[in-house]
């Protein structure tokens, strides 16, 4: 259970933290740190077993039809990454606690998202199924988008670039997952790795390599996608530290490390990665040399280090792969520390510009020590861990590809690129330390950081030092990774002093060259800046804007003026299809007989339809519409559909109430249409009506009951215990449809809420009382009520009865006419009565009558019913019976209760948001005139 808990705990915590945030603000970082620490301890206890070669797995079926499983697996590589994610996560959370101001609203949001991100990242490294890996990978991209974007004010373009680039990689990963699963015959990651020969022999091997490399290159900011990472630096420092230094950008490295065994021996795999990584390492390092903004310097430094890691994976020898794993650890330690110290400097002085910084060593001694140690590790200075891993990386390239499958040239080319990059690394590391902490003080410290802000970086730097001194203890890790990923132990003892070897001389040469570069920086930077590389971000933005412009042009071509112009073409197509149907359909079977009573209804219906269409007054049109609605209900009665008839009657009553409510804000008469329009509309109406009627006559209802209908009628009672077959279809047989339908209702309610309450440019104020004398009509009272003793008495008597009836209809629905929809509508009718007699304030003021909570609760109940099946080992949307307190009911009654509540919520939403009266200072609608209310008035946004 350790594995699912490790992934689930941060995800659950992320959901709960915002609730705590209201009370505790930035202090929620502490429980977040505690959760990650607990996961770290749990995983850490597995270290001895994993070093002995044990793995832990956990598997549950996820998509049984496709063989995709929710499978997790803990081996050496996964454990290494998981520990980096959790341990650095703990320190980042602590740092965040002191980084944010006490009243900073971004604090809770950032901490919760960081926790969510930690869960996603643990999912990436623990996933043992390529589809699950993809899902977790995408979750990290999305979380990262929100973390970079912040509240959307300044991070938007950086977040957009990061999202689109990493989403491109996500698609590539999905493609790669499909190809790998096809070749290996399983989506299990362990299965794919075990099927290495098949994967390499498949015709799609090169395509799979290309897709995996694309996914890794976008996520880990390799050339030419490196631009998104510096752009992401608008995020707060805790975010940059965690995502863009220590963890997320390592996901690409993790991917290529994880898949290295599957592709080992493919020249295209090794060659591409070495060139890609080496180029990125050189480019990142030398761009970093030219940066003045410390955060940009660190961002390009990260790009460079990721390039080194990718190149190591490309070389593919056990030593290279094992060293890559250890360098992930080393880089996480020193780069997280460096980002944190940059954040401290920024916090203390208000600037990150090297031209304005200097001499801070005395003012910020703790940070200076941490930064110096961490930068020394980055540059590869003994005795830090970074020195050992950098030296082993050089050693791996010096030894070359050997017999492990990479082309022979990769060793030398890789070595050359890495040496050039390392010289740059030394130079900018020196520049960072000297420029910030040495020399004369330029910008004084005006805001002293708290100890909590400085401590995490010190801890990380100290860990970097201790791990370097005791580096021998990491040899088993190197061996394990080499065996797991490269197919053999590297046969290297990790230690600080190997004697005077070519390797040591190379390291010393790199350090000396770096120092020389730093000393000659003035001239060099000019040269480097002159040879500017094409700007990836600009190219991205040009593509992005061009795509939007293209869309705009297409829209301009296709945009028609006015609704009828939009509806015209579909109507023409519909009429055309109907004509084809009329000509080609050969009627089969016998046409159903009508009944005499049918024709009475038809005659009345014709009058009703004429009334709706021809009336120029709104009240007349509503009267016609009601007539039509009641006649349709009668039609249902004649056709043996009492449930439908009852639903239709209730909907009709609500529609009339709704239309009347809205009409109060609209002029009383319709604008007259032009003669041409009326003629065209009438012609279209006649064509469609005749066509649809004709096709109905020729093709519909001639074959009797459907086979499915027969089966439901015969077996409904036996299978569901319900006698009302229509209701059993709604809540049992086709409950999934119903779930979708109540979701639509909830969306409609939310849409009404959003339309009326939230547009920022013109929010509608809270309701105010209408003047009693509205247009001389004393019946309009308050902001909604209609005065009248009879109505009031009726309401007091009828509304409670209606509610009881509604409950009764809900209860009996499975057996007899009724159900959630009908009951909900009846309860809604009670609310309408209440509204009409007591006014809008009655509904507005009550905490029970609120749109989003009601519809949300209803959906929640329905979903809980749906999920109760799988949780108790049954099907989604289960059937069967429940016995509560001795009363046995159909289990689907719970679902019907959800339906009931959603319908009530929708009706309440209509009344709340459409049913308010006119504000006092607004001219009455039927008098016309411009609407010049002050939009900045007391805007009330309430659900």
């Amino acid at each position, binding site marked *: 259970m350790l594995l699912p808990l490790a992934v689930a705990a941060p995800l659950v915590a992320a959901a709960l933290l915002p609730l705590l945030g209201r009370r505790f603000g930035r202090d929620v970082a502490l429980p977040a740190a505690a959760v990650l620490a607990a996961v770290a301890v749990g995983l850490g206890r597995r270290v001895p077993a994993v070093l002995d070669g044990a793995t832990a797995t956990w598997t549950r079926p996820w998509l049984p039809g496709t063989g995709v499983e929710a499978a997790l697996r803990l081996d050496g590589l996964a454990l290494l990454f998981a520990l980096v994610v959790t341990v650095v996560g703990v320190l980042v959370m602590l740092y965040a606690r002191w980084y944010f101001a006490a009243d900073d609203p971004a604090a809770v949001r950032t901490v919760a998202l960081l926790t969510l991100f930690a869960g996603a990242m643990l999912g990436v490294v623990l996933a043992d199924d390529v589809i699950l890996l993809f899902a977790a990978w995408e979750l990290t991209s999305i979380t990262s988008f929100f973390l970079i974007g912040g509240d959307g004010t300044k991070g938007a373009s950086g977040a957009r670039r990061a999202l689109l680039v990493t989403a491109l990689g996500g698609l590539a990963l999905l493609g790669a997952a499909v190809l790998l699963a096809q070749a290996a015959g399983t989506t299990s990651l362990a299965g794919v790795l075990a099927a290495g020969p098949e994967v390499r022999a498949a015709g799609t091997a090169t395509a799979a390599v290309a897709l995996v490399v694309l996914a890794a290159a976008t996520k880990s900011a390799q050339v030419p996608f490196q631009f998104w990472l510096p752009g992401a630096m608008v995020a707060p420092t805790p975010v940059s530290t965690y995502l863009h230094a220590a963890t997320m950008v390592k996901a690409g490295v993790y991917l290529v490390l994880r898949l290295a065994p599957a592709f080992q021996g493919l020249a295209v795999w090794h060659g591409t990665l070495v060139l890609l990584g080496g180029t990125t390492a050189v480019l990142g390092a030398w761009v970093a040399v030219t940066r003045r903004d410390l955060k940009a310097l660190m961002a390009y430094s990260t790009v460079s280090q990721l390039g080194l890691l990718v190149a190591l994976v490309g070389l593919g020898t056990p030593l290279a792969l094992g060293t890559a794993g250890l360098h992930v650890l080393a880089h996480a330690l020193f780069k997280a520390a460096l980002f944190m110290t940059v954040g401290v400097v920024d916090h203390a002085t208000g600037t990150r510009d090297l031209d304005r910084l200097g001499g801070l060593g005395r003012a910020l001694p703790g940070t200076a020590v941490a930064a110096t140690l961490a930068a020394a590790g980055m540059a590869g200075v003994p005795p830090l861990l970074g020195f050992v891993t950098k030296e082993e990386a050089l050693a791996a390239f010096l030894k070359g590809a050997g017999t492990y499958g990479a082309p022979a040239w990769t060793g030398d080319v890789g070595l050359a690129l890495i040496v050039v990059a390392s010289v740059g690394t030394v130079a900018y590391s020196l520049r960072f330390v000297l420029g910030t902490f040495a020399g004369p003080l330029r910008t004084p410290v005006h805001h002293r950081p708290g100890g909590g802000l400085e401590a995490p970086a010190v801890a990380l730097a100290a860990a970097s030092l201790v791990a370097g001194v005791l580096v021998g203890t990491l040899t088993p890790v190197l061996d394990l990774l080499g065996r797991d990923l490269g197919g053999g132990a590297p046969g290297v003892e990790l230690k600080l002093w190997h004697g005077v070897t070519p390797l040591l001389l190379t390291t010393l040469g790199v350090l000396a060259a770096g120092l020389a570069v730093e000393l000659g920086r003035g001239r060099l930077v000019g040269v480097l800046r002159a040879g500017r590389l094409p700007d990836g971000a600009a190219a991205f933005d040009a593509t992005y804007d061009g795509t939007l412009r293209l869309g705009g042009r297409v829209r301009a071509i296709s945009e028609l003026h006015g609704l009828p112009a939009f509806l015209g073409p579909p109507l023409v197509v519909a009429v055309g299809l109907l004509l084809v149907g009329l000509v080609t359909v050969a009627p089969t079977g016998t046409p159903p007989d009508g009944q005499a009573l049918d024709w009475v209804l038809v005659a009345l219906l014709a009058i009703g339809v004429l009334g709706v269409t021809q009336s120029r007054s709104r009240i007349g049109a509503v009267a016609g519409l009601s007539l039509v609605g009641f006649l349709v209900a009668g039609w249902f009665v004649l056709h043996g559909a009492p449930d439908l008839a009852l639903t239709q009657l209730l909907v009709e009553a609500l529609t009339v109430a709704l239309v009347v409510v809205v009409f109060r804000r609209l002029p009383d008469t319709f604008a007259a249409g032009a003669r041409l329009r009326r003629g065209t509309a009438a012609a279209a109406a006649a064509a469609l009506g005749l066509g649809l009627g004709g096709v109905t*006559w020729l093709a519909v209802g001639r074959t009797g009951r459907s086979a499915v209908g027969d089966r439901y009628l015969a077996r409904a009672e036996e299978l569901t215990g319900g006698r009302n077959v229509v209701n059993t279809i709604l809540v049992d047989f086709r409950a999934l449809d119903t779930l979708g339908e109540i979701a639509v209702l909830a969306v*409609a309610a939310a849409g009404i809420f959003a339309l009326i309450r939230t547009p920022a440019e013109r929010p509608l104020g809270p309701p105010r009382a209408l003047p009693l004398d509205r247009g001389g009509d004393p019946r309009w009272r308050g902001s909604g009520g209609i005065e009248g003793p009879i109505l009031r008495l009726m309401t007091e008597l009828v509304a409670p009865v209606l509610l009881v009836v509604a409950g009764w209809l809900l209860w009996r629905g499975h057996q007899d006419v009724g159900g959630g929809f009908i009951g909900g509508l009846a309860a809604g009718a009670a609310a309408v009565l209440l509204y009409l007699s007591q006014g809008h304030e009655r509904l507005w003021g009550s905490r029970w009558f609120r749109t989003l909570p009601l519809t949300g609760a209803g959906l929640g109940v329905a979903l809980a019913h749906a999920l109760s099946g799988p949780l108790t080992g049954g099907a989604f949307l289960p059937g069967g019976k429940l016995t509560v307190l001795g009363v046995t009911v159909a289990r689907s009654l719970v679902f019907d209760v959800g339906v009931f509540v959603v*319908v009530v919520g929708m009706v309440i939403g209509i009344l709340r948001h459409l049913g308010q009266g006119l504000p006092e200072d607004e001219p009455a609608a039927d008098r016309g005139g411009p609407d010049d209310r002050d939009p900045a008035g007391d805007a009330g946004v309430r659900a």
Partner: protein
Amino acid sequence: MSAAVVVGLLAAGGTYLVLQRGVVRVALGFTLLGHAATTLLIAAGGADARGVPFAGAGPGAADPLPQAFALTAIVISLGLTAFLLALAFRSRDVHGSDDLETTEGER
């Protein structure tokens, strides 16, 4: 035959209204089109068997499947009408009229 006439009448009325100006009339039109769709669904069950479709109702029972489809369709069309009317309401608030064509150019 009667079912065909009902469907045709409702569809024609609905079509006429959705081609008018003003969101309110369009909303009324959609309501009529909704009626046309539900009556068409019911017609698909056959107009000869008109018994109430309860378990054990025998051969005269109507087809329950179209009824179930139609029931949810009715409720959803209420939601759609409400949403369209909210648009009309908002349109009047922002543009001073619910007439889509006269307000188009003001944006």
